[in-house]
């Protein structure tokens, strides 16, 4: 892959919380157009890595570049081109879906365009509930609204941390289909984290498995799955 098309480049990233080494010298590259699976058991360092990519958590060492820009010093420029859903979609549940998106757009300094908000609500299947308070939403609807808030700034890169956690099978399928649409039809690069291998298998073209904060396997999903002799699933299950 042409290095010019690297969207995320991480080198030697580390973070420690007290006695726990959450991330330990992690390297990864995500290319333009990828749906990149970020796989690992619970507590493997996925969320901490994602939070560091979004400058929610300060790394102890290592470098993070997005769109060829260093995160330190280019945070605003990077976040203008990035949408994210980190774990649960925690939104202002006393406000409507529309108002939530309006507020989050305004934080970004975007000129709030009602048409754009309705577009992302339509993409996520929530346009009929645009003016309902979020506290009346089901878990699946909240998850879709979380993705809608990530999309509202029309980002090139979507970072989704466990977007199907806690959803019923239909909810999982809806999110999976939505990710496919965003990648194929809207040409978004997607990084999706999960602790379930089969979920990543179905949506990602490239993936990394991390454990105890460092990479254990990385590559094309097809290649890794072809090599079933190595038994990726058993390997992953051993980790989990």
């Amino acid at each position, binding site marked *: 892959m042409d290095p010019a098309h690297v969207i995320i480049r991480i080198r030697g990233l580390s973070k420690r919380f007290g006695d726990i080494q959450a991330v330990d010298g992690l390297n990864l590259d995500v290319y333009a157009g990828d749906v990149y699976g970020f796989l690992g058991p619970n507590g493997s360092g996925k969320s901490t890595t994602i939070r560091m990519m*979004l400058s929610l*958590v300060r790394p102890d060492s290592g470098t993070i570049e997005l769109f060829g820009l260093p995160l330190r010093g280019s945070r605003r*420029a990077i976040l203008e081109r990035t949408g994210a859903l980190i774990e649960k*979609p*925690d939104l202002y549940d006393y406000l409507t879906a529309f108002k939530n998106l309006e*507020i989050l757009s305004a*934080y970004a300094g975007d000129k709030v365009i009602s048409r754009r908000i309705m577009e992302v609500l339509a993409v996520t299947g929530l346009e009929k509930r645009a003016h309902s308070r979020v506290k009346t939403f089901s878990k699946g609807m909240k998850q879709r609204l*979380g993705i809608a808030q990530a999309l509202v700034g029309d980002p090139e890169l979507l970072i989704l941390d466990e977007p199907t956690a806690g959803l019923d099978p239909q909810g999982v399928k809806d999110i999976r289909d939505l990710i496919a649409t965003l990648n194929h039809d809207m040409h978004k690069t997607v990084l999706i984290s999960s602790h379930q291998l089969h979920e990543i298998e179905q949506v990602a073209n490239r993936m990394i498995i991390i454990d105890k904060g460092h990479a254990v396997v990385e590559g094309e999903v097809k290649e890794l799955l072809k090599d079933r002799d190595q038994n990726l699933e058993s390997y992953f299950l051993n980790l989990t």
Partner: protein
Amino acid sequence: MGRITRIELYKVFTRKRSYIGFAAILIIVLITLGAIAWEGKDVFDFLTQNLTQSFYLQGNLVNGYMESYLVLNFLWVHIPLLIVIVTGDLLSGEANAGTLRVVLTRPVSRVRLVTAKFNAGMIYSFTLVIFLAVISIGSGILLLGRGDLIVLMDTLNIFPSHDVLWRFLMAYLFGLLSMTTIASLSLLLSAMSNNSLGPILSTMAVIIVFTLISSLDIRVFDLIKPYLFTSYLDTWQMFFSFNIDRAEVIKNGAVLLGHTGLFYGLTVFCFSRKDILT
């Protein structure tokens, strides 16, 4: 900055808990008014029975100004509590709810966000104090009328009716400054916490402990009193004496402003370095 401040204000004023303070003030003012209307004359006669041996008291002394002064005394103790219910929750409440994480994935700097929340906290505090002023003075004058104001501090001060209103105005203006300091302290504690209750309780604990130290006449405390912001919160009372020490008022105001600036600076420092883990 104006846009983010407006968003923060919108969030503050769409939450029900933000109206607890207004409701509490309304209830306290109404109770005080009712009590004065029913028994104010008897209580006033009882309190001034020693004075009547030396003075001849004439006119409407149980009036709206007296009620406003009483409310002012009651509420400077309680207004900080009403303010920190909202300002102590500005950052920690969002951290607890997880919305801070969502907001900070947007391209807004942490300094701008803290400053907008600081502005919103100040505007909320101002609104609450102005509401108190308007309700207590307005309803007092409307229901009990105007008259001279008797204030017993170190000496007995009797202010003629036409000399009272500006004193209330100045007292409330100084009160705004005091509440600014309290709001900024609660915002600092809010930046350090991830739950709503902690900063509210800790701010109140700081105010209670510092006020206790400020008011106790113990020599060892005299060394630290000048450094405690609570030593300056009651400066508003100076406006109810005939000889106002302007230099002292300005100095005390500057100390409170300095504390507000310090708390704001520390909030920015702490919040900019905080890992968002909720």
